[in-house]
């Protein structure tokens, strides 16, 4: 947010940004139609899933400074709502995504209402507790397989032609782009200034007229809903969903590491962090071993926290001054 800096170029308007994002999505879609190797869509899906998760996390964690350790809970709930509704009614994927987002938004509302009176680290611990409680509940939910997990049949063809994985990729592309557009819109709106004020000094924000509680709860709902949407297509992507894979440590760690590496102050940070870290991990998985992933993420995260606490965007901005 440097909108008042007299020398900087006027920032792109919100409408223009949405148009560019739509154009970008269209171009990737058209390019995707030429790709015949399904691996590209598998890898691309993972990258976009992390763009979505990191962006969703950053709306609360980066803009408002409330660190949510419960990403895995929202993500897994999205995945399990989708699994359950698919088994029960066999609804189409977009409906499952909306349902996952709605349920997770509601959980964000409950969690926010209960825990956002807690400031700073206490909020973070409460979100961690949420993840543990949710995992215990889902492990005992027999309808979706309980501890044994559930198989989900992935259709062989997607509704747009091409494989179903290709369809999942486009779905995730749309969701990720939407999330980035929402994040940027929030960032530039009055809410963005209110959240930044909360992050910097909550009592001073309240004294400046910011309804801090209302704003924090609304942000938790939005952030949770986007995480739920990220989880909803997962059962079709992995085809076998069990609690350990839904509540994967990698998801929780990555979602925090990516915004930190990219920079938490603006929408672009989580995008850069997500693309970079997920590509590094994908490359490590293919070339070295699948176990070295998290080690790499951990090392990169430590490096950034000690050497560049404001992430890549912070480094770039520092250079420009």
């Amino acid at each position, binding site marked *: 947010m440097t909108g008042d800096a007299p020398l900087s170029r006027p920032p792109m308007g919100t409408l223009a940004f949405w148009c560019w994002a739509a154009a970008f999505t269209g171009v990737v879609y058209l390019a995707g139609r030429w790709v015949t190797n399904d691996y590209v869509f598998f890898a691309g899906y993972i990258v976009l899933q992390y763009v979505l998760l990191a962006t969703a996390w950053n709306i609360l964690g980066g803009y408002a400074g409330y660190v949510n350790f419960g990403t895995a809970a929202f993500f897994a709930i999205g995945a399990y709502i989708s699994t359950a509704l698919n088994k029960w009614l066999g609804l189409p994927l977009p409906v499952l995504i909306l349902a996952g987002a709605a349920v997770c938004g509601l959980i964000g509302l409950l969690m926010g209402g209960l825990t956002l009176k807690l400031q700073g680290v206490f909020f973070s611990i409460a979100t961690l507790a949420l993840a543990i409680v949710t995992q215990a509940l889902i492990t005992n939910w027999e309808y979706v397989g309980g501890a044994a997990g559930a198989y989900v049949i992935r259709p062989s063809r997607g509704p747009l032609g091409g494989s179903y994985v290709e369809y999942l990729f486009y779905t995730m592309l749309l969701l990720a782009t939407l999330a980035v557009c929402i994040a940027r819109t929030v960032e530039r709106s009055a809410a963005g200034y209110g959240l930044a004020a909360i992050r910097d000094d909550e009592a001073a*924000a309240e004294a400046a007229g910011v*309804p801090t509680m209302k704003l924090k709860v609304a942000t938790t709902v939005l952030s949770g809903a986007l995480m739920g949407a990220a989880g909803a297509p997962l059962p079709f992507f992995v085809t076998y969903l069990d609690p350990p894979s839904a509540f994967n440590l990698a998801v929780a760690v990555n979602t925090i590491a990516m915004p930190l590496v990219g920079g938490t102050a603006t929408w672009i940070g989580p995008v850069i962090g997500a693309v970079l870290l997920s590509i590094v991990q994908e490359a490590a998985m293919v070339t070295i071993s699948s176990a070295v992933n998290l080690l790499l993420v951990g090392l990169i995260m430590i490096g950034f926290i000690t050497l560049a606490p404001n992430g890549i965007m912070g480094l770039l901005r520092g250079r420009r001054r």
Partner: protein
Amino acid sequence: MAALLDVQGLGKRFGGFTALADIDLQVAAGERLGLIGPNGSGKSTFVNCISGTLRHDSGRVTLGGQLLDALPPHQRTRLGLARSFQLPRPFGSLTVAENLRVPLLYAGATKLSDAECRERGMALLGQVGLADKAAQRPRELTQIEQRKLELARAMAAGPRLLIADESMAGLSNAEVDEIVDLLLRLNGQGVTIIMIEHIMRAVMAFSQRLVCFVAGRKVADGLPEEVVRNPEVERAYLGE
């Protein structure tokens, strides 16, 4: 004329410690009130109870006839009660201009457009002499500039009543005069001001009326020259 701020029987305890006991205070619209008292006399607790940061245990507080007791701080700000903090608490990641933008966006009765926000913010910064620092971060400001930013941000909320909580502590004599002038100008524009201050020179120059707290009680309330000669006030400051 009815008082703008009306405090009746205000009490606040922390555990067994009585921080404020049975405080009555009326402030008329347009008045300049000085509030003094030794350290620990309850001045800051009083400010926190009035502005909603703390909930008082007993009594009632009204602003312009509106009962404030159950309202959170941001709603009190919107009703026209703004405060500055003892130690400046700027929004560190925002520029100076953006610091004012927050109350301009949130505290006003009407929704301002982008251009209106900018215009009003710059006008306020001009008033406190920070116009050329608009694009800087608060940490790049000097001590007195941070105090001015603190006051400007409180003013951006468009208050009827401004509570300036020790906004001159640690400043040089010339700087103190500058802040007093600034507060007098704001008062001239119709803002009622309560100044909480240890620097007697500033309090005496500013106040039309002086109130003194000692150990959570109001011991004096009247013309400044009379209050400083009050034996209880003298004892509190100078000892027996």
